[in-house]
């Protein structure tokens, strides 16, 4: 995980917490109200505009076009919470370690620098690495120093070799010159032809003497040149390896180790060359994967002096952050105190100011931090009920907690969710199944733990079940011709069949029929009260002819039949005779029925009907 921080309003550096995770892989800011949604303008520091920048106002980090909120990182939050619970490092080991560190820095200070002080400081390194929180970084530094010294030994050997080679070169050059000069010694023949022959022989002898000398001289020159290159390469390699270690310590936010390593570097390489070659030599070939894990080396400072200054600045910034934390804690401003401490922790997790902070002080903000983290988690998982409760608790515990942002997010989510639930209800009422599912899904996505969600969806689905059950019941009762039961539950069936025109028509017919039967029964009851049993029977009988399957009509008909037996018998026989086309007997019986009950409509109708039949031409 990458973290950057802004120092002194100008310098932006990148630090690595050691988690091999790129900003791109990090989760987005949890709080939807945080300004992280819009990247802040990148500050143009002296290292260019592409370096990470941290906006203290929004706690948003911007780097390579990616943004995140340092407070939102789960790993960081967990690490910070762990730190708040940890005991301060004030044990004897820790004290000894601090003293050893101080002693080494002191011995390597420019004012006291000597071979003796270097050796003393170097001797302390293995002892310091024993302290567990050091993570054996002092040992790594010790190894690096040893490696440089070995390289320097090799350079010394090469120097000795070159000196010997230079001596040999001098000898060979002198011998060559002597051989060249002595070749023309001795008497020269006077005969021109003989003299010419002699000269040729002398030149041949000289060439044969000088040939091995010149060959060896060439070899010596090549060796000297090769040794020079080798020496430079060794020296450069040693520097690079040491610089890489320092850079690594810087990226690990081991700023004290950076200062110490820098001083060792200066003691080891006293040539005044402080150029940080890591960026030049390695940055160009750095793979994307490596960049993702360790950061872009091209964006590192260009000299060791800059790295040293940045480390010092980071240490100072952390010290100020811790002081600010203590002050805010005294004032009861837990939010700001927590933020200052988390910022200081993010930068200087391993610095004494952070490690020595008393646990008592840390625990004062622990509860606030824990609840803040819980609030972020609640917002991340959209548990707005829990988030609202946490906001109230945080408001109560901290004077400077600003609830506006989280509450805005919570209220917005609640409102929008309620809106979608209302739409879901409307869709359910209008039978829009697709709309219902869509609105419920949206409401669930916005606020998954909305208590009203279960209630509403339960009610809707129960309603749907009830509706379906009612329709099933209607079909069953209709098939059984149990119209009376349909009439008894008419409210349920009317509601259920609201969306089915075909069922509505059938239901209307059923209800009309039963309504008529009911009217007949009411009329019968009224007549029966007046002692008009025949009239009551006739009323029921008329209803019965329309709806012969109604049990209530059947029952009433049976009751009134016994009360008006003679009249009923007459009518029955009249109808029977009519059916047999015995018009005379049928008419006689209708007349008999009318005699029994002069108001009988059935009898009158029968008489009229048969009269017309008989008189038909």
């Amino acid at each position: 995980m990458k973290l950057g921080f802004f120092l002194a309003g100008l310098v932006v550096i990148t630090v690595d917490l050691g988690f091999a995770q790129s900003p791109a892989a990090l989760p987005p800011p949890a709080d939807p109200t945080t300004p992280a949604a819009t990247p802040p303008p990148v500050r143009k520091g002296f290292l260019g505009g592409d370096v990470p920048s941290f906006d203290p106002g929004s706690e948003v980090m911007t780097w390579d076009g990616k943004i995140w909120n340092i407070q939102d990182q789960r790993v960081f939050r967990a690490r910070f919470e762990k730190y708040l619970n940890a005991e301060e490092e004030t044990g004897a080991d820790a004290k000894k370690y601090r003293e050893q560190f101080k002693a080494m820095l002191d011995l390597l200070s420019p004012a006291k620098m000597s071979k003796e002080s270097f050796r003393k400081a170097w001797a302390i390194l293995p002892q310091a690495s024993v302290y567990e929180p050091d993570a054996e970084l002092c040992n790594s530094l010790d190894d690096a120093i040893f490696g440089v010294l070995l390289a320097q030994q090799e350079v010394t050997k090469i120097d000795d070799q070159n000196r010997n080679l230079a001596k040999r070169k001098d000898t060979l050059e002198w011998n060559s010159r002597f051989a060249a000069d002595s070749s023309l010694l001795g008497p020269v023949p006077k005969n021109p032809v003989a003299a010419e022959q002699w000269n040729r022989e002398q030149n041949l002898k000289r060439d044969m003497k000088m040939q091995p000398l010149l060959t060896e001289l060439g070899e010596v020159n090549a060796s000297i040149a090769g040794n020079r290159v080798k020496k430079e390469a060794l020296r450069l390699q040693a520097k690079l390896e040491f610089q890489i270690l320092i850079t690594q310590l810087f990226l690990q936010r081991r700023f004290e180790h950076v200062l110490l390593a820098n001083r060792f570097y200066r003691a080891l390489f006293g040539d005044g060359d402080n150029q940080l070659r890591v960026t030049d030599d390695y940055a160009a070939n750095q793979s994307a994967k490596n960049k993702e894990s360790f950061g872009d080396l091209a964006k590192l400072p260009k000299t060791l002096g800059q790295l040293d200054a940045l480390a010092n600045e980071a240490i100072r910034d952390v010290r100020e952050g811790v002081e600010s934390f203590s002050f805010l804690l005294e004032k009861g401003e837990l939010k700001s105190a927590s933020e200052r401490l988390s910022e200081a922790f993010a930068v200087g997790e391993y610095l004494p100011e952070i490690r020595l902070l008393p646990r008592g002080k840390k625990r004062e903000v622990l509860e606030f931090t824990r609840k803040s983290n819980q609030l972020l988690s609640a917002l991340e998982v959209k548990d707005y009920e829990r988030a609202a409760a946490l906001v109230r608790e945080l408001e109560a515990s901290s004077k400077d907690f600003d609830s506006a942002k989280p509450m805005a997010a919570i209220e917005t989510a609640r409102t929008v969710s309620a809106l979608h639930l209302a739409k879901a209800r409307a869709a359910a009422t209008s039978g829009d199944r697709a709309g219902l599912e869509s609105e419920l899904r949206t409401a669930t996505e916005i606020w998954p733990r909305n208590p009203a969600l279960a209630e509403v969806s339960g009610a809707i689905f129960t309603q749907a079940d009830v509706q379906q059950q009612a329709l099933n019941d209607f079909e069953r009762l209709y098939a059984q011709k149990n119209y009376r039961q349909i009439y008894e539950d008419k409210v349920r069936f009317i509601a259920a069949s609201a969306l089915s025109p075909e069922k509505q028509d059938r239901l209307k017919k059923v209800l009309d029929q039963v309504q008529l039967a009911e009217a007949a029964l009411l009329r019968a009851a009224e007549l029966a009260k007046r002692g008009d049993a025949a009239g009551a029977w006739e009323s029921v009988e008329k209803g019965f002819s329309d709806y012969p399957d109604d049990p209530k009509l059947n029952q009433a008909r049976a009751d009134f039949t016994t009360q008006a037996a003679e009249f009923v018998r007459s009518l029955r026989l009249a109808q029977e005779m009519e059916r047999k086309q015995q018009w005379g007997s049928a008419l006689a019986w209708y007349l008999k029925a009318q005699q029994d009950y002069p108001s009988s409509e059935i009898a009158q109708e029968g008489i009229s009907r048969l009269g017309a039949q008989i008189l038909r031409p």
Partner: protein
Amino acid sequence: MGLVLASVFVLLGVSGVFLFQKDGNPYRTVERLKPADYLENGNSLRGNTYQLEGIIASSLGSNPEKGRLFSLRAAHGEKEWPLPILVPPGFRDVNLQKGQRYRLKVKVNEGGLLEVEEMTKS
């Protein structure tokens, strides 16, 4: 002498009864209709002729070709039976009204209906 007188009285009595009856019911030779039988199965009586006495109860309709249809309250035993009678067009001159008592000679026609053949006020 006594026997002769007794015979004369019996003869006079029988003659009186005969004469009295002849004046009151012109259809005395025709069988009386039993309403219960008619109501039970009028068709089974088709073709038969009966005498009947009753009160016109109401008019049930009329047709120039078929005649007039009335309801007659016929007494039989202790009961009164309402019976329909068809008065053919031949009796169109007879002014039939509700409440009038008539003595009728009726025939059960093919339709099982009591069709008036003769009628006299009583």
